[in-house]
């Protein structure tokens, strides 16, 4: 792993953690709150590929769980969100907008399914309890589609992102 990948992965994790842990999004007509974490996860996966996508989504969201005090969910979160990042990054590689869309759907499905199975079995919530969490997870994942839009906007604003994501070493692209 080279220095550039180390830095990019660390920064991607931190972006995901911040969006999951500290940005409340009201859920329509319920008075409850969710977070735009999936937006960041889809963005990172599409921009930087399956490996960084998986690590950033999984570790980022699990760290957020720990920070927020939901320590016991962290292992499940690591796997479920990691799968979302992996699938979204893998399916979107070089397959254009269709691939990105498919990545979001597949990753989102994996996340919802893994949470459901994990909560119903290992965590002992039972089918009824896991079903109660289902709409919440679905909504959270649905928001993730905006991560695709975010990717196109960021690429337009900051074209250097292509160099960051590519396999090349450093070239002096920023004038900061």
């Amino acid at each position, binding site marked *: 792993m080279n220095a550039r990948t180390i830095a990019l992965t660390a920064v991607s994790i931190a972006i995901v953690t911040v969006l999951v842990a500290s940005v409340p999004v009201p859920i329509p007509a319920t008075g409850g709150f969710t977070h735009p974490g999936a937006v960041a996860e889809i963005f990172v996966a599409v921009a930087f590929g399956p490996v960084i996508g998986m690590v950033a989504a999984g570790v980022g969201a699990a760290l957020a769980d720990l920070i927020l005090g939901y*320590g016991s969910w962290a292992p499940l979160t690591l796997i479920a969100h990691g799968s979302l990042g992996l699938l979204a990054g893998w399916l979107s590689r070089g397959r254009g907008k269709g691939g990105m869309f498919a990545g979001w759907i597949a990753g989102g499905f994996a996340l919802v399914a893994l949470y459901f199975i994990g909560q119903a079995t290992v965590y002992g919530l039972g089918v009824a309890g896991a079903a109660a969490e289902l709409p919440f997870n679905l909504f959270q994942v649905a928001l993730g589609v905006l991560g695709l839009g975010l990717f196109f906007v960021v690429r337009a604003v900051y074209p250097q992102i292509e160099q960051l994501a590519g396999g090349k070493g450093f070239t002096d692209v920023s004038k900061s």
Partner: protein
Amino acid sequence: MPGDGPVAINADLYVPGRSWAHRLDPRVKLLFVACFIVLVLVYDNLFFMLSALVLVHLLHFSARVPAARLRFVWKTLLPVALLMALLWTLFYPRGEALAVFWIVEITLHALAQGAALGLRILVMAFAVFAWLYTTDQAALVRSLVKVGIPYEWGLVLALALRYIPTFQGSYMLISEAQAARGLELRGAGFARVRRMMPIFVAMIVTSLRASEQLGRAIEARALGAPGVRRSVLHDIRFRPADYAASLLLAAGTALLLYLNFALGIGEHPIALG
């Protein structure tokens, strides 16, 4: 209750101190977390769960973790624990009914099972936080590297932990800067997130800029220089107390697992033996 703006988080969970738990080798604490989680997943008994909860609280107290930190965990997880207890009580009746409301049967078995499962969530969380509250981030990362995680991934984690408060701060400043230009965050769900886009874009670009500089800084400090075995400044080393603690942990866990698997102790939610 979260309002319009971002919520401040405290990303560094470490509580500075010199207690025995702080001085324990971080790998022993990692072992403790692993043993604890395995045991509470294996046992289904309410009394076992209660004892584990008391034990883990005693550990926190003896490590002088402030009560506020423990309240924080209780506050976030109690609703989930109660929901679990309620769901099991309502939906999984077994044995003789204690009371019947319309079609809902309340049984002692379901009540105990629900309580045990709710407590399990709390016990697991407190075990993990016993490790995180008493281990500073550097030692945390070093212990993960020592148990086999490649150094690069340890570095990734350390850097991520270091950047979380930074990015949280820049997220707040960016929200302010955009609000000052007339951006109003209203609405819910998709509409709300779409309005947040300018903030996300500025935050990601700022972060990626940080990532470029960080990458160069790491490179400039000769990470991955060929033919060099990395040395470390503060190595962690097992002391006699650490060996003793590990041995105790392993023996205790083995015993409890034997009792459960061979003798069936702790299988039933309420009955002992």
